[in-house]
């Protein structure tokens, strides 16, 4: 292709673009539309979790938008794919704040994307409610627009430790994590707390491995701990626990809320029955959670992923705050919505949520659940082993 052809191509492209001009310029009735954006990985290896966030939000919007629509607003979901990449997340964030109809962001999955992106949201006081970012730094920066409905690593870890030492009364434990912000964070918090309680940690390691856990299991089996903790997500935890069990590891298994998915038993099968996990989402036996699970399954044809419930709750809170600021049909502002969110008292399937001055839930209730069957359809029938409520630590200054 010669430069002449480049030239003509450019010219052609320009003509085409002019012809299409009106298409990309957005809907005309912006003032009466409220958009709720999600940012999460929708492609790549973490897409399953990211999609859960999007779907949870979608379900909540459809369910709770009635009042807003009555007030004359159209409520729309705008899903963004952050590809789990910080640079993509930031550029999306810039795009989001430029769209004045977007009032709130539900996201992200990865703290590594959430932190730089929320710096951008802060520029325009755009509220963000995170369903999944457990890293302390997310809220410890004390931004007025950043909130989360999930627990912090330094809360959930100790919950697990309390259960292991207090209820299970184990003497030795082996801790493995997935080398992600989340998995390592919660595993370290768990380990530190457990050591304080006098339990011996016989091993603490990380791994990015996803399939073959043989070489990790072999020393665990030799050390024969009473408890194995995996800090991470079900798609790694289940094969790990399964391979460990098959290889003859006799320990009890424990993990964080990343395990809370019916896929956990779908992958792990019989081997993972009896596993404990900590979660902020109420047992599905509670009416709300049960209803959520059923509606989700009905709409999307599958069981909710971890964080789908949290996204649902986060969206519900956002909509509640939106109803507050749009009273009398007045157009909402991001700033007003931000402070309204901080004032919401919401009672849902993850317990009652009220934000403190950093955006953490004032008091997080945690459940320790035990897997009772290898039938994924009956995931909701998992047994509640313990219930704990712990307040988020105050901001370290």
């Amino acid at each position, binding site marked *: 292709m010669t430069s002449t052809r480049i030239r003509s191509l450019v010219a052609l492209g320009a003509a085409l673009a002019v012809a299409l001009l009106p298409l990309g310029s957005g809907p005309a009735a912006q003032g009466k539309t409220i958009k709720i954006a999600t940012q999460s990985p929708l492609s790549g290896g973490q897409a399953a979790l990211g999609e859960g966030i999007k779907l949870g939000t979608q379900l909540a919007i459809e369910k709770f938008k009635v009042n807003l629509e009555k007030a004359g607003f159209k409520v729309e979901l705008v899903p963004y794919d952050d590809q789990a990449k910080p640079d993509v997340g930031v550029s999306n964030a810039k795009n989001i704040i430029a769209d004045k109809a977007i009032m709130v962001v539900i996201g992200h999955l990865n703290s590594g994307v959430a932190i730089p992106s929320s710096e951008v949201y802060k520029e325009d006081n755009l509220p963000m409610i995170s369903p999944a970012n457990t890293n302390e730094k997310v809220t410890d920066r004390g931004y007025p627009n950043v909130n989360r409905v999930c627990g912090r690593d330094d809360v959930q870890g100790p919950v697990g430790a309390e259960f292991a030492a207090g209820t299970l009364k184990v003497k030795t434990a082996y801790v493995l994590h997935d080398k992600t912000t989340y998995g390592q964070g919660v595993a370290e918090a768990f380990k530190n707390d457990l050591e304080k309680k006098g339990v011996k940690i016989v091993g603490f390691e*990380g791994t990015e491995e996803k399939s*073959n856990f043989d070489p990790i299991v072999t020393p665990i089996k*030799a050390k024969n701990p009473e408890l194995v903790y995996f800090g991470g997500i079900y798609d790694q935890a289940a094969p790990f626990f399964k391979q460990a069990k098959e290889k003859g590891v006799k320990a009890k298994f424990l993990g964080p809320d990343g395990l809370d998915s019916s896929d956990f038993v779908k992958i792990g*099968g019989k081997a993972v029955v009896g596993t404990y996990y900590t979660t902020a989402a109420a047992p599905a036996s509670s009416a709300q959670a049960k209803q959520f699970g059923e509606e989700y399954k009905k709409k999307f044809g599958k069981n909710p992923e971890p964080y789908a419930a949290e996204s649902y709750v986060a969206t519900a809170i956002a909509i509640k705050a939106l109803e507050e600021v749009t009273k009398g049909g007045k157009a909402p502002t991001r700033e007003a919505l931000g402070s309204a969110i901080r004032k919401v008292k919401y009672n849902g399937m993850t317990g009652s949520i009220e934000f403190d001055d950093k955006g953490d839930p004032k008091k997080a209730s945690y459940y320790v659940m035990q897997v009772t069957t290898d039938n994924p359809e009956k995931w909701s029938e998992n047994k509640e082993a313990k219930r704990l409520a712990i307040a988020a630590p105050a901001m370290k200054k």
Partner: protein
Amino acid sequence: MDFELLVRIFPQVLLDGLLLGFMYALIALGYTMVYGVLEFINFAHSEIFIVGAFVGVELLLGLKSRGVLDTAPWPLVLLGVMLAGMLASGALAVTIERVAYRPLRAAPRLIPLISAIGMSFFLQDVIRLTESLWRNAFNLVYPTLEPLNERFELTSTLDVSAKSLVVIVAALLMLWGLHALVNRTKIGTAIRAVAEDQAAASLMGIDVNRIISLTFLIGGAMGGAAGVLFGVQYGLINPYTGFIPGLKAFTAAVLGGIGNIPGAMLGGIVLGLLEAFAASYMSLLTGGAFGAEYKDIFAFSVLILILIFRPKGLLGEVVRERA
């Protein structure tokens, strides 16, 4: 440092490493076959591999839902499923070559590489799209063939599962078969002739395009078989599962001397052993200062070291530069 423990688990770690190594070796064959003939890294091989795994899981799930899975003899089921996986992966490999590589055969070497990377991205999401429409699922779980889960206790510190043995036996058989095909048959000689000089081969009456397609078919089929075995062994696959094992297998192929079939085997085993020993021993040897998370660093560092002293890999021929 717990020396006694170290010694006690040694045989098990060795076995773990060998098993992993055979898995890598099987995937590496696809890279090496294609490289041997076209001197080109088929980056999309990880997807060819994972398609085999997906076809396998779909078949097994299909059999299971018809209730045949538990009644049919498992060797037959496994063989059938592997053949199907091989066929699908082989066909995919041939198609990819036809569509995305053949038009680029005369282009500089990096061009097909980028095309292959694009193909890899494309296929990952095509698989995902297909699976999400078909099963509305992201992670798929291999149904267990019960007899394969049986474990044999060889000693008190060493045991092995039936499926691991199947993987090792299958890998050895396929390697032997491939070696025989390439070195002892006319078609194998033709493959080597095309690898060396395409134009001269065509002057012998060899249809070069067909031989190249055949190479992709064989390499792809090996990948497909590896995919099924991978699924049977580890149980869980998703559209992106292929990427990391693919990368490791590629490393193994280079380590052994890319383009060299026994080299792929050796490279796979060396890499498998390195990873297994690093993951099992790192923490024990350093008193917990470093752990299994360093296994890839360890493996890659050894790779770099080996290549520094043997720049063409372990079995790669050191071709004398002719001035």
